């Protein structure tokens, strides 16, 4: 019954990590259980809530639907723990605190990842649209969207 183990070497939050995990494991479980990075949360396990969001090779993904074994050696993964160590992430966190974008905090790591991806990749959409895949039951989103917009504006001003 047990699935065979596989091994991968990824760049996780800027550090090369070699991990061994079951071939059918989800990326979410590998991050949380194998790498002990519990920033990504399981809010639904079905790709609906975004609490498990991570960035994989520049793309925003829900790690609960990502088969870990499908990510080859050399894949770059950024989680909430990594986001806050970047300049953009640090600014974003400041704005989240300033606008009151954090309440219970369970959606927050996923929000931070999605917002960071938005600020870094600058897709031609507004912050509200960029965050439409992340559920938050506490804030009503206004403070979060304001924080992301403020971070985007601060970035622009700094050129």
């Amino acid at each position, binding site marked *: 019954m047990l699935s065979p183990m596989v091994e991968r070497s990824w760049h996780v939050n800027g550090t090369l990590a070699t991990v061994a995990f079951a071939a059918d494991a989800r990326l979410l479980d590998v991050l949380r259980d194998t790498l002990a990075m519990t920033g990504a949360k399981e809010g639904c396990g*079905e790709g609906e809530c975004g609490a498990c969001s991570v960035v994989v090779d520049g793309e925003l993904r829900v790690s609960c639907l990502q088969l870990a074994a499908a990510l080859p050696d050399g894949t770059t993964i950024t989680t909430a723990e990594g986001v806050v160590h970047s300049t953009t992430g640090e600014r974003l966190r400041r704005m989240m605190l300033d606008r009151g974008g*954090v309440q219970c905090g369970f959606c927050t790591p996923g929000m931070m990842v999605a917002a960071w991806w938005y600020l870094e990749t600058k897709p031609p959409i507004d912050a509200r649209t960029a965050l439409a895949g992340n559920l938050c*039951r*506490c804030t*009503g989103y206004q403070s979060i969207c304001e924080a992301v917009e403020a971070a985007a504006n601060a970035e622009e001003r700094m050129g």
Partner: protein
Amino acid sequence: MATASRYSGQSVSRVDSLGKAGGATRYVRDLVAADAWVGAAIRSPVAAGRVRGLRVDPAFDRSRIVLVEPHEIPGENTIAFIQRDMPCLATSEVRYLGEPVALVAAPDRETLAAALAAITADVEPQTPFVGIDAVAEAMRRDPASLHDLYALTISKGDVTRGLAEADAIVEGEYLTAPQEHAYLEPQAMAATPRPDGSLRIFGSLQCPYYVQPSVALALGLEPQRVIVEQCATGGAFGGKEDFPSIIATYAALLARKSGRTVIIDFDRQVDMAMTTKRHASYTRLSVGVTRDGVITAIDADFTIDGGAYVTLSPVVLSRGSIHLAGPYRTPHVQVRGRAVRTNAMPAGAFRGFGAPQAIFAIESHLDRVAHAIGMDPLLLRRRNLLRIGDTTATGQTLTDSVAIEACFDAVVERSDFDARRARVQAQRRDDAARSASGLGFALFWHGGGFTGSGEKKLASRCAMSLDRDGSVTILAANTEFGQGAQTTLPQIAADALRVPLDRVRYPLPNTAHVPNSGPTVASRTTMVVGKLVELCAYALVRDIEQRLGATRHDDGFALGDQVITWYDAAARACLDGPIRVEQQYQLPPGLHWDDDQHRGDAYPAYSWGAIAAEVEVDRATSDVACTHVWCTVDIGTVINPREARGQVEGALAQALGWALLEQVSYTPEGRVREDRFQTYIIPTTSDMPRMDVTFVEAPWHGGPFGAKGLGELPMNGLAPALHNAIRDAVEAAVARLPMSPERIDAARHAARRSR
């Protein structure tokens, strides 16, 4: 004691947000050790029936798991809430689909899944009675056929006379669906057995002192032998008020038998299918009104679906019934409240606690009443507003802190209501437009703290300790689950002590260290526990003064002719170790409540609010987009404006979901249909309007620095405002939540036919 506020009234930063934003904060799933076992319940496959026993697949290897059956419960087979009618594990009768009949724990999830497939409940099925439609139908045809979990009547004046004095009597029916809390972190509780036979319980919860007696009762332990610790909690909204007691008890039984830490952590599907919901409601109203808009009588049947067991339904019913007549001084009121039994999972606490259902009915209905007499709905409301000196439906005379009119005025002004209404009406005349706009308005209120004699019976206690280094710790059982209590209570303490905010700590509670300051419910944390914190601070200062023979003043303590700093004073006062003071809550004097008659001073203070909502209803699809909301509330002194705004905006999102999107329904067999985020739709960024949230402050003398309750209030007004806005847009009323496009469509067709 007058104190200059340095922190109260300031948007100081939350103490918990740095860790949360960086993904460092650990919730119970992040904390539990890798070798912990996982537990689950073996559940009834039917909603009503007689338990025959367990069916066990003989091929299944039972040596790898632990099974707990009802006869192994060492204490009482009961989950203790208001009444002791709910078994911990069902032994004879099953009353809802999924009711637990046994428990199982396994070393890993695969084994647990195999156990749940191999061991099943054998139940002889009976015909279940489920759903608010069945309840409503019974209320219309044969109300005596319903089984009351609890019933009450609220009476003021003589409602028959009041209706006779009216020029018009307007009748109506309003229904609401159950609402799922949808906290982002699903329920999870863990238990660790300790060598001395005591237990450590930890997890995602609101009320440690609800969990403790529940576990103790089932395990036959002294309550002090059950140590309950709150972990960071990912949202609750009432959903973690009563329910964690149940799964904590299960985890404890499994931990005791297996000798290991056991965690029971639901996935989203189990959480949605098997945890409490907001009570569905059916409200029937007759409102009498004179030609010039004086409401003479409100006559109401307020019926809520309590589900299978009593749990918290009596208090939900009571709060809902008390709030039903709205913030109006109607002379004659009768509300007949019933919480009826059905074969659904017991309904539970959810932000607002019965008040949103009642206020949805009356505030939606008042627009119909206004229409019936050809009056502006805002004017009708203004004519009947409660003011100081007026009495509520329970006969409470308001003496203090009533700012409903100021809220009213603020919303009218900020939304530019009259001009906007004219614009909206003009827009509607444009038949070529894709959508029809509408504007709706509602007023609402919420009593802070427990109803009636509740706070007196609770006799909450809070403590505060001082260390040699001058740091102060608040010792209270109240929990942080997003609302900001860990920040606002220290703000109150720092101001009352006159110390820097960073000197005050307020850790998550552990029953081994903190007294019972009562549950974190009923909008009571700032108002009631905050007051206790303030009193503790004064007591601590007095204690230091006495020990040192000194007097507190702004820069420190005057000791003879010298002045020493707070830190010097703390070091001297704590020579023999930390100092601890404790205080017990006392309601302000002069409040009287009659539990049997539901009469008197229902709450020590009320918070008030007004709201306007603008919508666009698609003419072809009946899809509703809410574009703007203006909401002004009076919560007395605002301790932390940023966090207060967050509470209001978050509640508005939940209210919008409840009003427009969120639907829990049951199959005829009693199964929850919407048990995933794919089918149970909560608002996303794209559903939310622009929200304009403001405060007017009518300080209440009994609250800390004048603060009143906040958390639930803003859940109460948006649903009826949206109802009225949709009615305005499509000239048809949908008296039922959620107001889905299908229902709006049906209402439009019905209205067209009748025109």
